[in-house]
């Protein structure tokens, strides 16, 4: 493979010539200019006004996936889309927060901040679920610390040290509180 183009092409030279570059100027780059298109300006994505762009929500919809679970939908649309994912329907406290979030539009900060909050609550629910199923989550494995051990030992030690520091601080704080 060729190195740096700057050594091969005297860009200043062809720009001074006043013209645009030609494939000869870039013979070392396979496919240079293959897709040159003066029409690509303005470019994708563009509204295509010729097609039924003013028709509104009146296209022939695909068949509808049966809705046999709870699906939250944006209040900026009248319905559930013809297909939807069935991963993890809302449940528990996080589910309640998500339901609350969907009472607000996508333009609302409350909508998104509530969802982020629900995600954090959901993490705790996840640990409880794991424990209920008799599985203690192996956080070190889940965080890929084996790879850190192999490829970046100092990075791993730093992470562990920070973790230990935070725990020590928390324990100290709790101990102090308990004394008070």
């Amino acid at each position, binding site marked *: *493979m060729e190195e740096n*183009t*700057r050594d091969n092409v005297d*860009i200043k030279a*062809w*720009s001074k010539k006043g013209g645009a*570059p030609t494939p000869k100027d870039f013979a*070392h*780059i*396979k*496919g*240079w*200019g*293959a*897709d*040159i*298109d003066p029409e*690509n*300006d*303005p*470019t*994708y*994505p563009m509204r*295509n006004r010729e*097609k*039924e762009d003013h028709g509104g929500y009146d*296209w*022939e919809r*695909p*068949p509808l996936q049966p809705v046999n679970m709870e*699906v939250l*939908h*944006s209040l*900026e649309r009248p319905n559930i*889309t013809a*297909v*939807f*994912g*069935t*991963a993890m329907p809302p449940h528990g406290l996080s589910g309640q927060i998500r339901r609350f979030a969907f009472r607000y539009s*996508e333009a609302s900060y409350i*909508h998104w*901040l509530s*969802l982020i909050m*629900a*995600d954090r609550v*959901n*993490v705790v*629910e*996840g640990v409880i679920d*794991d424990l209920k199923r008799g599985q203690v*989550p*192996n*956080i070190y494995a*889940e*965080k*890929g610390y084996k*790879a*850190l051990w192999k*490829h970046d030992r100092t990075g791993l030690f730093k992470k562990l040290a920070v973790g230990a520091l935070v725990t020590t601080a928390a324990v100290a704080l709790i101990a102090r509180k308990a004394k008070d």
Partner: protein
Amino acid sequence: MLAVNYRGPYRIRADRDRPMPEILHPEDAIVRVTRTCICGSDLHLYHGLVPDTRVGATFGHEFIGVVEEIGPDVKKLKVGDQVIVPFNIACGKCTFCKQGLFANCHEANPEATAVGGVFGYSHTAGGFNGGQAEYARVPYADVGPMVIPPDLHPDDAVLLTDVVPTGYQAAEMGGIQPGDTVVVFGAGPIGIMAAKCSWLFGAGRVIVIDHVEYRLDFVRKYAQCEAYNFKSLEDPVAFIKKTTDSLGADVCIDAVGVDAAGSAMQTLTGKKLLMQAGAATALHWAINAVKKGGVVSIIGVYGPPANLVPIGSAMNKGVTIRTNQASVKRLLPRMIDHIQKGHLDPKAIITHHIPLEEVPDAYRIFNDKLDNCIKTVLIPPTARV
């Protein structure tokens, strides 16, 4: 079956007891996954930055595989076909699909009208389980998926689900004209591909900015371009101005997105205090480094609710901003043509093939940029027998 199980920020594992996907809609297919990648977009999920990412979800929007089962309305695909599955889920019937805006389909994601349907990308992108699994449910199977041409290497095929069309579209959205100077922020797979594709549109000069040295070395050779480390530049915007006769680049491409490094202020407000949706440092630089009247192409992902961007600079300079998720389906035939002609060599960016069982380590390696990682392919056990 074996599938990725998200447990919370930075916590991910592969579990064997995940339920098998089923046909839930007449246009569905079930695909047995043979290769699936980890994408920079997955890192936004991994960091917990995408709202409505539910614990237990399976990630993965880049996968190829074999059709195992089809719904009654599937006509073009048949059982046994090897397929490329674009990351966008698209109906092919709505006004947006009809305009080639397959990333903006209106019938694939109930949860957010602003976002299309994407495999394994949280409920904000439709709540679909993804392809980092042995099997995946693929809706609208006649619309998106494409049978893999016989001469195409599977490692090239899996990069056609996202990276290649996405990098290409980044350059396309720049409206590059012959001789233009293009600056690409980010030397990840998307930035690398965007730099490479900029030449196809006749760029005269391509410059890539990142701070990971091995990636800069790679892109310099792979995309035959200039590449600079922003950590060793005092001010990347001033540097770009200086090297473009003080006018700025004709086109700036943001191939970084919400997880950018490089600005203490953006990192504090976006990643520590969560006052904005991640750090928009690269976009900030792109808007400031582009020439007056130039184009900023945003291919890096940004999410809700909002980001701090210098809109005043864009306004005063008359900058055009073009942006979208890639419309993979629209670009597939052209991309295959470029691969067959030898203009593009996607598989050369793959540095790691890792068994799906080792997914936590695979995410860690890609996330922390260990072991000179550029692009990682996961192989499920059912694909190895």
